[in-house]
């Protein structure tokens, strides 16, 4: 929760700066985001590569564990598709690209800002921050009305970090390993799916 508030605070501080200083806004809406994106992608990659335990966890899971990230991907996309009539002023591929952020707000929003412009990037940022905060708040309900696994799926890529303590608390300790595997798998999926939908 604290992390989510920090995110909102930084973005809000930026908003206020941008509203008041035109030249600063000019500077930030061009090449700068691209270089930050490249730096971030490199660090994300190094982070995945240097974490030996994580790499091993990714390659040594049982079949049913592997099905969960697939369920999250298909479920998220079909769910967004089902509600698409409500946001039909948006292009369908943009809607699916936003849903493919799976809570990984920083990566999906910067990718979509670069590929599709600031408006879609902002929608991706808000949507994925909402996914993280919403899942934190809804965790007890998801366990009761859906299943303990549903918290992991709803958490998307955040099942490995922000949501891990919540999953431990509401789904149970036995879901920690699957949550870590799921989060890693989603982290790898986000840049691929977002790029795919943005380039259709």
């Amino acid at each position, binding site marked *: 929760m604290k992390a989510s508030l*920090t995110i909102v605070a930084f973005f*809000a*501080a*930026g*908003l*206020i*700066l*941008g509203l008041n*200083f035109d030249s*600063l*806004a000019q500077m*930030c*809406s061009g090449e700068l985001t691209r270089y*930050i994106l*490249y730096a*971030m*992608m*490199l660090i*994300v*990659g*190094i*982070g995945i*590569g240097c974490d030996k335990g994580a790499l091993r966890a990714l390659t040594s899971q049982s079949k049913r*564990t592997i*099905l969960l990230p697939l*369920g*999250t991907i298909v*479920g*998220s*996309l079909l*769910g*967004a598709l*089902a*509600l698409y009539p*409500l946001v039909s002023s*948006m292009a369908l591929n943009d809607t699916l690209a936003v*849903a493919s952020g*799976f809570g990984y707000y*920083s990566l999906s929003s910067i990718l979509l*800002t*670069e590929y599709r412009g*600031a*408006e879609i990037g*902002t*929608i*991706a940022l*808000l*949507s994925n921050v*909402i*996914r993280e905060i919403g899942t934190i708040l809804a965790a007890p309900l*998801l366990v009761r009305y*859906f*299943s*303990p*696994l*549903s918290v992991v*799926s*709803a958490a998307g890529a955040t099942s490995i970090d922000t949501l891990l303590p919540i999953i431990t608390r509401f789904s149970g300790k036995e*879901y920690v390993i699957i949550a870590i595997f799921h989060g890693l798998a989603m982290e790898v999926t986000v840049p691929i799916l977002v790029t795919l939908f*943005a380039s259709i």
Partner: protein
Amino acid sequence: MFIVLGIIILGILIGTQIRSSKAPSIISKLLNAIIYLLLLVMGIAVGGNEQIVNNLPTIGLKALIITAGAVLGSAIFAAVLYRYLFKNRKAK
């Protein structure tokens, strides 16, 4: 736009060569710093974009709707997987 995927793969290859056990925690701190910088810069860019600022409530509503669909859809799929694959067997 596939440059981005190329960079992430390069990162993974560099990462597998790093032996230090301290690396993951240093990397995650670095990533945090970059994320905050990114949010600030994106906020500034959005703040300077009149079209987005004027449409922020609409944009927020769209974001909320897409998220609701994605969260519910994935929760339902996970519940189905749980029922058929996990319920009667102890989760690892």
